[in-house]
């Protein structure tokens, strides 16, 4: 039993990371109908930024986090302008490809600038964690879970209770209609990218002490996060979270009880099963027919 609980905790921890990245995917998808293959690299950038600021420049953590988040906000805007905006009317394929290109550019750009050696970011806390009975609660994992809960709540409040949030929702549901109602669609999309970028960066900051910071860290998370968002119901915010957590747990249990080398396969097998039998995921709307 103790082992199962430990696996559950770790699974939820990893799952929260998938959830945070999936959240970024889903938001961009809802606003623009496009999948951003570079979403994982936002996390990578956030993590590297922390390394540069806190290790190389030896700034205190709180300052490093602040600067990183601001930098990611700016980056989100730039990303929108360079990668999405010029292609916004061209259908989803060119954008998918363009984001793949962006992903390669980002990863290799950082590689060229920083070198391939993986970096460490020490944990934010000096204490590693604590044990309750047979289960060890890693402090960083606890932080991730906590931050995810807070982010989701804040986000919910923003989208449901503020005017700006509702405008963004409107844009994501029907661009034309929103524009007819006087909502500046391009601005709303810009805000979506900015927020998603910061979200990705935040995921990177949180996960850096656990996974170590390397150029490829983003892509490996991104695919799983993408799968998670489909399992949860593509386009649904709650779905992204639940899907991410579920995926983390399934993966961890699968690795422990079935096979460790095939761990990655579980995520994708579950995904394929969902796509075949329930493509709308757990929470999504029925995959709509076009008019």
């Amino acid at each position, binding site marked *: 039993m103790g082992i199962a609980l430990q696996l559950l905790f770790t699974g939820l921890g990893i799952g929260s990371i998938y959830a945070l990245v999936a959240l970024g995917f889903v938001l961009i*998808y809802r606003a623009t109908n496009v*999948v951003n293959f570079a979403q994982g690299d936002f996390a990578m950038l956030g993590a590297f930024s922390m390394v540069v600021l806190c290790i190389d420049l030896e700034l205190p953590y709180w300052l490093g986090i602040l600067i990183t988040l601001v930098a990611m906000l700016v980056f989100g805007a730039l990303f929108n302008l*360079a*990668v999405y905006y*010029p*292609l916004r009317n*061209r259908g*989803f*394929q*060119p*954008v*998918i*490809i*363009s984001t*793949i*290109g*962006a*992903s*390669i*550019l*980002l*990863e*290799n*750009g950082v*590689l*060229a600038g920083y070198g391939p050696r993986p970096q460490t970011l020490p944990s934010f806390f000096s204490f590693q964690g604590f044990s309750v009975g047979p289960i060890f609660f890693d402090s960083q994992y606890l932080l991730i879970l906590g931050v995810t809960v807070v982010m989701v709540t804040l986000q919910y409040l923003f989208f449901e209770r503020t005017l700006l949030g509702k405008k963004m929702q409107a844009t994501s549901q029907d661009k034309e209609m929103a524009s007819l109602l006087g909502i500046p669609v391009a601005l709303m999309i810009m805000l979506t990218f900015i927020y998603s970028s910061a979200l990705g960066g935040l995921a990177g900051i949180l996960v850096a002490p656990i996974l170590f910071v390397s150029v490829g860290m983003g892509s490996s998370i991104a*695919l799983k996060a*993408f*799968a998670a968002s*489909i399992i949860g119901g*593509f386009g649904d915010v709650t779905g992204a979270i639940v899907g991410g957590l579920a995926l983390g747990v399934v993966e961890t249990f699968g690795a422990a009880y079935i096979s460790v*080398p*095939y761990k*990655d*396969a579980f995520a*994708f*097998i579950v*995904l*394929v099963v969902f*796509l*075949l039998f329930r*493509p709308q995921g757990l929470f999504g709307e029925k*995959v709509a*027919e*076009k*008019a």
Partner: protein
Amino acid sequence: MSGIVSSEAHKPPTEHRSGHGSGFLIVFTAAMTVAAPLLLPLTAYYLNLLMQASTYAVAVLGLTIVLGYTGQINLAQAAFFGLGAYSVALGTVSFGLPFWPALFAGIVIASVVGAVLGLTSLRLGGHYLAMVTISFQQILMLVLTNWISLTRGPDGIPGIARPIVFGFSFAESGTYLALCVAVLWVVGLCVGRLKHSKLGRAMQAVRDNELAAGVVGVDVYRTKVIAFTLCALLGGLGGGLFAGGFTYISPDQFGFAESVVFLTMALLGGARSPFGAALGTALLILLPEWLRFLKVTYLAVYGGAVILLMVFMPEGIWGFLETLRQRLWPLAVLPVGRVAPLPLTTKVAREDGSIILEVNQLSKHFGGLKAVDEVELSVRRNTVHALVGPNGSGKTTLLNVLSGIYKPTNGRLFFDGQAVTRLLPHERAGRGIGRTFQNVRLFTAMSVLENIIVGAERPGNEVAVGSTGVEQHALAALDFVRLAELRKQTVQSLSYGHQRLAEIARALAGSPKLLLLDEPGAGLNTVEKSELVQLLKRLKGHGLTILVIDHDISLVEQVADRITVLNFGRRIADGPPAEVLCNPEVVAAFLGNVKTHVAP
């Protein structure tokens, strides 16, 4: 009236690009490139490079079919490549098969897997397909790496044998390269020919306008699955040849990154053309070699280049060159000789005014919204039946149900005496229902004539037999709407009014028993509208049965034999025009309760 009457149909002047001349050029070039590795003393470096390029190009041609022609994304081409490679490797090394059976097995395995993957996931589009292909890719990698007893795992498989044909061995690299180049040429030519075949046109129709393709008679699902299977087949072929070329393979060569490479090769060169595939492959294999001096940054440059390409050159380099060529040397307006008249009604058409389309208690709900609410409608043969109503009354929804685009919530449909309620769009086209759309849905990348041909190729179109027959029939349809001269133009260069006419011609080419016209007058100016009315009258004069939606009453008045009026999804009137248009409820629906007559 032009183009009719003459019973001696002269063959329309067929245009070959340059007939025998270009064929000879191709054969000559092919022979040269195949012979080159045998004759020239190439270093091992160039041999290896070209071997990689030619086998990759075969795989990229698969993407030309599925992505370029059919518009479906496939992010697992490296997996199919890997299936082919492993079949050859395991076949020759572990099972002792000769090269050719192992290669054949590889092609079959890749195709079967591709077909299964396609059958299961092509019902979902876009992102879902991308995800399934990525997942398959990842799972295959894991299997190749971890099922060590079968695949030898990450050690890979060395010592792959090269083929022997009647004692002639291909072991020498130059000879093997010549083989690869020969295969590449054959595949490339086939892929090129495919574009101008019926299947190729169907693929392009699916890509350009999936919805219209189905309505016009293309079995969309089947076309997509065929395209996907062909792509997998070529991936397997390329992979098998690759294994024989490098004589050593390991799982890390067939991962997602490689699929991205294949995809980028297709896009860079131009996904829509086999030349593009070859060009993209050559560039992306040679570029890193030329860029070796950039050593550290070239991959980053390459990623940035992909973005720039998508923004500025989405059709890839070849597509860019094509567009340039079209701008500089636009296709001339081509005169056409005498054209056989279009047989608008089939030989066994009945002229008795009986009911051809019956709509019983049809409802279509979207959640709580009742877009169509228990509508009854009967269309008689050889009449023009109009469906009118204010905006949002459910006209287009009803038409979409008739086309098979929506499934009705309740109710039944009968066409020509048979129940069609459950039929798919292309099946309805096969029964003789033709349709045009409110916002013109032509296949933008094909020429005007090709668009019409797609219409003529609808299943069960008994008037068109053989490819010349089909082309003639299409030409006749085009001639009927007086656009024959513009047949070689791209659709985009046509004026809006001409596009509408072209769409009608496409529907006519399918020899429809019933023609559904959705707001044919929308967006037309007064002159164009009066021309449209003339056209409708001509069609009516030929005995065609038409169901037309329009909100322009004055247009409808001039041609309709019967009018049905919808409001808020319900039928509020049905009868001859004179009667319906005076109905106070109808007037109220259109104009509110104001009695003044406002010009539409």
